């Protein structure tokens, strides 16, 4: 595989509704921004780019089949190669990885990954129905199809199994909403307290409205290039870009029906799912052995095995041993505060069962921001410095690519330039991870980006 650079990106402002433009026009905002940030004219870049991958989740929301080719057409990319990918909430992350494959394999030197979703075209309850159709329509959807309900069942099991509290969940909401306060692209930019989160209207017990991301209209685009492609871009502009290289790619899957998730034994977990730093730690092995003695089974409905497998692959690819110590920031798929906590565990930032205390510890917070919380640990690895899905919004096909754009800007140390505010710049960020997740953990992608020294 060839080296792949993430050279540029753009994001439209995520918002409740964008009736002022069609989806093609919203994608073009992100696309034009990414091109302009390279210092290129539109016509010149379109001559140089070899092709694309399009990302959008739902034909229902678009009320338009073949929307991918309509964007390709609008961006002036025809007749270059392109295709659309779809994988629920992970569509954007899959798109990023498919563009990576196009470049890594030698098929393209410059590839643009673009994505969007127009969720405002229906009322919220109809949108919930469209999303819930991404559950088994024979067995799951008719019982009361509602994704917030599915995730709420996962968290009640997590709470029962590990003692996770709603206040720990609320810490994630407080963190991500306040991070977003400094991100002009975010949809919800607020200072909340734990009490605010808990007083917010109950949606699916115990998840309140402030535990859950909102539906959005938005688009994002990421430009990836090989060494040859990067050289062409630099030659065309006479500029030397701050290099960000994609060093790790991982993807996992799991059963569509939550009810079908396995309940693996300790030995199977240690053999197939434990991270190397967990296997090497006698204390952690003893901790897990004790969990199993008390009835714990993996992944059950409390953990995302797909997220663990994606992390395992990506860490191996990038040479990451201890993720908490070796990753500078993570943009992960926090459609729910609970799923952020579950994902801490899947990604090995803490052990399974310790996500709740980890969320409230302060380790995943940004330094230099007063969250109004009593955090007993200093920030170690900020998670969702952008505000994540909970605060930025979740226009599904754009979300995973939005994470890619923000990761590029973090690693290029250009957050101040793009946000007009330096607060969210992770100082000396060298390695960042983006994590994209589809319905109840069916598809999960983990991609690692690093600033090249």
């Amino acid at each position, binding site marked *: 595989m060839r080296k792949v650079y993430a050279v540029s990106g753009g994001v439209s402002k995520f918002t409740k509704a964008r009736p002022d433009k069609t989806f093609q026009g919203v994608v073009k905002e992100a696309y034009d921004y990414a091109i302009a940030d390279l210092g290129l004219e539109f016509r010149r870049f379109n001559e140089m780019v070899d092709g694309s991958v399009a990302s959008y989740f739902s034909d229902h929301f678009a009320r338009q089949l073949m929307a991918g080719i309509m964007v390709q057409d609008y961006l002036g990319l025809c007749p270059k190669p392109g295709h659309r990918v779809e994988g629920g909430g992970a569509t954007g992350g899959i798109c990023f990885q498919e563009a990576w494959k196009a470049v890594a394999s030698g098929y393209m030197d410059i590839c643009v990954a673009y994505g969007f979703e127009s969720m405002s075209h229906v009322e919220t309850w109809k949108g919930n129905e469209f999303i819930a159709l991404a559950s088994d329509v024979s*067995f799951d959807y008719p019982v009361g199809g509602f994704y917030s309900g599915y995730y709420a069942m996962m968290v009640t099991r997590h709470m029962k199994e590990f003692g996770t509290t709603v206040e720990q969940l609320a810490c994630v909401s407080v963190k991500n909403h306040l991070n977003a306060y400094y991100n002009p692209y975010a949809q919800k930019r607020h200072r909340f307290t734990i009490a605010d989160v808990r007083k917010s209207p109950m949606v*699916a017990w115990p998840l309140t409205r402030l535990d859950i991301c909102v539906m959005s209209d938005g688009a994002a685009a990421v430009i990836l290039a090989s060494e040859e492609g990067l050289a062409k871009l630099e030659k065309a502009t006479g500029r030397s870009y701050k290099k960000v290289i994609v060093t790790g790619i991982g993807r996992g899957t799991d059963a569509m029906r939550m009810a079908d998730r396995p309940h693996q034994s300790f030995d199977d977990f240690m053999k197939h799912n434990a991270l190397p730093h967990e296997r090497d730690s006698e204390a952690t092995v003893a901790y897990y052995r004790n969990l199993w003695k008390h009835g714990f089974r993996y992944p059950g409905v409390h953990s995302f095995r797909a997220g663990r497998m994606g992390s395992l692959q990506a860490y191996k690819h990038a040479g990451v041993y201890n993720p908490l110590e070796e990753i500078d920031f993570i943009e992960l798929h926090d459609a729910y505060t609970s799923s952020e906590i579950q994902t801490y565990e899947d990604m090995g930032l803490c052990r399974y069962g310790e996500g709740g205390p980890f969320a409230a510890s302060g380790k995943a917070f940004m330094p230099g921001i007063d969250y109004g919380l009593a955090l007993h640990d200093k920030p170690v690895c900020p998670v969702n410095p952008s505000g994540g899905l909970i605060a930025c919004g979740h226009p599904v096909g754009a979300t995973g690519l939005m994470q890619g754009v923000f990761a590029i800007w973090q690693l290029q140390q250009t957050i101040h330039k793009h946000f007009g505010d330096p607060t969210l710049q992770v100082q000396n960020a060298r390695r960042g991870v983006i994590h994209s997740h589809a319905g109840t953990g069916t598809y999960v992608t983990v991609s690692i980006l690093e600033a090249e020294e």
Partner: protein
Amino acid sequence: MAKLPRNFEETLDGTIVWDLPFPVVLDAQGLAALKKMRPLRVRYPYKIEYLHSYGQDSPFFAGLTNKVHLGSRDAGTGYTYATPRGHDMYSGQETDWVVMPGKGKVHAFTVCYFGSEAFLKETPFVLALIEFEGVDTLFLARLMGVDPAEASLDWIGMTVQARYRRNSKLAPTDIYFLPAGGDDKA
């Protein structure tokens, strides 16, 4: 030759608009003003009726109609699914039908106060994943007979009993669960 229609028929269904504001003169200034026009939005109803087949899962739904909860089992390993599937995910072999126990326990649950359009009128309702002794996977169902306003983690582990709708709708909601020991004799 019959006279062919020359006008597209005028009707009064769907969106009808008269006198939409528009530049009177389409000179350069008038055309440029169009870029400042506010977006036009129209309502577009869209209704679909699917002819959905339950395929190899059909006996499960026939079972519910007859007040029987069928799961499936791999003959070789005995791995048993509370929500049936035609082939085992490990051996790849076709599974056999087995009758599930009527009693189980709540493995996880939630109370939905909001939801998809189709279920809004039923809120608040309780969704639960049910576990069964000797069965390897869970079963998603409605849990009745508990007060949604009194949701508690103590519900997890509660013994529940299957109950069936009298008027089958050939849907997975033909079966639901009640706390065991109540008035249920189904």
